């Protein structure tokens, strides 16, 4: 048992590292941020959490379905009080990892008006999506999400409209 424990710990650590599909080297921003969300859940943790999700709650039931087939979910989100707390190189360090052949930029936009950029990347293997990366930046915000595992676009679309977020409704057209 004494020999098995370090192996189990090592295995758990390795599975965590393998599940995350790119490095989120943003920890140095935590000290500057007013609000930080740092979530790192690998497959076993997701399965453990799934046991505690309540099927009677519609949101939790949806998440329970989404968890099936997932290998991990990793979120780093920082909100700052002032602009200039993060630099473009912070985001480039993440973006550069998504330039490999496995990743493809699905959608993205840049707003010069409010300085916001956002991209969704998908990772494919054998013509199947097995990972999603979401990068959102604003002058006072930086959020990076990696959902690892077999997430199809249907699952992605079910994310919208839950948790109090309204279903995809375009904002009023500016005249």
């Amino acid at each position: 048992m004494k020999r098995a424990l370090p192996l189990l710990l090592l295995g758990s650590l390795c599975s965590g590292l393998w599940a995350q599909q790119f490095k989120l080297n943003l920890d140095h921003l935590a000290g500057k941020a007013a609000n930080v969300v740092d979530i790192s859940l690998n497959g076993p943790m997701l399965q453990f959490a799934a046991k505690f999700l309540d099927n009677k709650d519609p949101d939790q039931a949806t998440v329970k379905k989404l968890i099936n087939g997932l290998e991990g979910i990793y979120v780093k989100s920082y909100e700052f009080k002032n602009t200039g707390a993060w630099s473009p190189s912070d985001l480039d360090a993440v973006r550069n990892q998504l330039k490999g052949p496995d990743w493809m930029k699905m959608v993205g936009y840049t707003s010069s008006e409010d300085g916001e950029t956002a991209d969704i990347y998908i990772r494919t293997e054998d013509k199947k999506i097995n990972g999603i990366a979401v990068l959102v930046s604003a002058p006072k915000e930086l959020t990076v999400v990696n959902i690892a595992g077999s997430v199809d676009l249907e699952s992605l679309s079910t994310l919208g409209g839950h948790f109090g977020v309204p279903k995809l409704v375009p904002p009023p057209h500016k005249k």
Partner: protein
Amino acid sequence: MDWLEQELKNALERKAPSPDFAERVRRRTRGDGFRTALWPQRWLAAAAALLVLAGAGMGYRQYQGNQARQQVMLAFRIAGAKVNHIQAQVKERMR
């Protein structure tokens, strides 16, 4: 010899133990008497300690599960909100 010396002499004088003294000592050291009487209490204390430990273990597991559930829900809330926001912005720009 005054009365105090006499009293002390009486008190410290060697007395032979009662005939069953040795047997009583043997019985106690074997645990047939005193220890046997405490057995049920000890078992009860051990069972109570086990129950408390099991309860604490279950409570801790429930706590960990709730923490994991909250983290999963928050992660999907953020992911869902961001994806929905991007979709809305892109759709708006495509008009």
